[in-house]
């Protein structure tokens, strides 16, 4: 009986969590222009409409540029921070690492407003690069969290052994460290990419006249006739996010397997 109650709870929980998202594809393929039951008929019209919207294409391009840059910058910063945090002890380490990880729990709206104020004070125009900076700020903690796992799974004496066998610190990093943390690097790139791609608040505050995809989507909500198109776009974004997360996790697990370690966490 107890087990059944738990099973019912689990199913209800998942339903509440995913039913709204399941509505996206439902209405994306519905031929009616009003988002309401009963469904009218099947159509690909809204997806076709996506192809004929230049503003959307610009927004997509912006988003991709921002997401890719963010993924690269966050992962590089994360790589350095994670190695330092797992390999060295230095005064104030706990506090420093804590401050670096803080954006993970800091309300994004605060980050966004602060960045906007700084930009205005400096007399700079907001735009793509400022969104990249903001996204890097919130993505770096994720990169560190993932890469810290990779580094702490890696025996410290592996690097020492390579140096002992005649390699320089740099060639050791290239031959030993990088290959062994590369699954973590790939996972970090993909997860930072996904976070940046979906992020709305910072992008909304800083995008100026170059909207990103989520900002563009939000703008479209003002026109009821565009709602089904938004649904179609939403469907694509959801599928893309899930796919990226699965790929990231696959790489992380494959990395563990390759060095013969047991799984100890991760996002999935």
């Amino acid at each position, binding site marked *: 009986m107890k087990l059944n109650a738990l099973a019912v709870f689990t199913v209800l929980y998942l339903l509440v969590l995913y039913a709204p998202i399941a509505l996206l594809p439902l209405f994306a393929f519905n031929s009616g222009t009003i988002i309401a039951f009963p469904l009218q008929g099947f159509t690909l019209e809204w997806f076709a409409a996506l192809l004929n919207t230049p503003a959307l294409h610009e927004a997509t391009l912006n988003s991709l540029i921002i997401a890719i840059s963010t993924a690269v910058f966050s992962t590089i910063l994360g790589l350095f921070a994670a190695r330092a945090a797992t390999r060295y002890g230095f005064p104030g380490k706990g506090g420093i690492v804590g401050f670096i990880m803080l954006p993970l729990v800091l309300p994004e709206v605060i980050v966004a407003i602060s960045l906007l104020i700084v930009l205005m004070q400096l007399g700079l125009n907001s735009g793509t690069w400022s969104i990249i900076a903001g996204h890097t700020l919130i993505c770096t903690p994720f990169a560190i969290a993932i890469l810290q796992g990779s580094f702490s799974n890696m*025996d410290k*004496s*592996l690097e*020492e*052994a*390579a*140096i*002992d*066998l*005649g*390699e*320089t610190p740099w060639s050791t990093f290239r031959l*030993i460290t990088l*290959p*062994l943390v590369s699954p973590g690097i790939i996972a970090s790139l993909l997860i930072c990419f996904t976070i940046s791609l979906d992020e709305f608040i910072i992008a909304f505050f800083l995008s100026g006249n170059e909207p990103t995809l989520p900002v563009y989507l939000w703008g479209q909500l003002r026109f009821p006739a565009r709602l089904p198109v938004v649904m179609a776009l939403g469907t694509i974004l959801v599928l893309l996010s899930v796919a990226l997360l699965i790929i990231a996790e696959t790489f992380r697990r494959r990395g563990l397997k*390759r*060095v*013969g370690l047991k799984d100890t966490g991760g996002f999935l």
Partner: protein
Amino acid sequence: MSQTSTRTPIVTLTGVQKYYGDYHALRGITANIGQGEFFSLLGPSGCGKTTLLRAIAGFEDISEGQILLDGKDMEGVAPNRRPTNMVFQSYAIFPHMSVAENVGFGLRKSSMSVAEKRAAVGQALEMVGLGKFGTRAAHALSGGQRQRVALARALILKPKVLLLDEPLSALDKKMREVMQVELIKLQREVGITFILVTHDQEEALVMSDRIAVMFEGEIAQLDDPETLYRRPKSRRVAEFIGMMNFLPATVKGEAGGRVGVEVQGLGPAELEAAQCPSGAKPGTAEIGVRPESLTLLYDGQTAEGGREASGTVREVVYYGDMTYYDILLDGTPAPVRVSMRNMPGRKVLDFGARARLAWDPRAMVLFS
């Protein structure tokens, strides 16, 4: 070949000190380690033995003193430029490489041709008994095999000194004993100086030419295994190396180079000066005696020179080949441990039985 080696020194440590902030990890280590010697650093955890090994390898800078390797001062010389190679406690086998790639890693920068490198790797694997394992993935190896790969990888560069950091501690007891013998054979074969760090006194006794026993960053005693076992210089060393009984005693005085002692529970004994490493001031002291130097007497047997004592069996521990007894000697507060080899005609005594013991003053050490 005891405290000072007759071999040409290959490692010379002079007044080596290491501080970690306020913590004084090495407090003036001075020792010569000879060419081709199997040298062990033995001590409990935190005694500085691993720090010293890592300082020789170049992974730790020393705060004071000097480390000479093959006559050259190693100050400021990076680990990759030192004539040493190391076998790490975790073996540090590169998990993303094959066995052959691991073993050949150190040859990456050598001027050998590909064929020569392959031959060298094959030879190194053959040497450690892994001839057919070259293509195996490194993470698919057992503990003992990883150990051998680590050895082959470190020896392929023909270092002047091979450093081994607790290399057997990750193996089970059987495998450890096998590898102990193999390590000795290997060391004899290659003639390279081995410096072994271990907390296992038995391992050190079995394998080493000389052992430095370390406590709190200092060498407490540096001797060959037999001297270390038979003539420990301090009670602490005696307790760390094997098992030793300590009996209260009174030093009577010295006459003709011999020290007269009255040992509680045993009787009067005369010791040579060599048996009194910390001097022989008249007054209370302690006598150390190993369990195997006390012998149970069976019916009809008598002790040489009447050196006999009696007591009651307080504990019997049967090991198959040996039996350990705790015997409370008459007139003493604490029991002594006695070990007897089990042989035909030697029946195992029962708990509570009366026992007679023979003892030998030559097997005693005086600690004052």
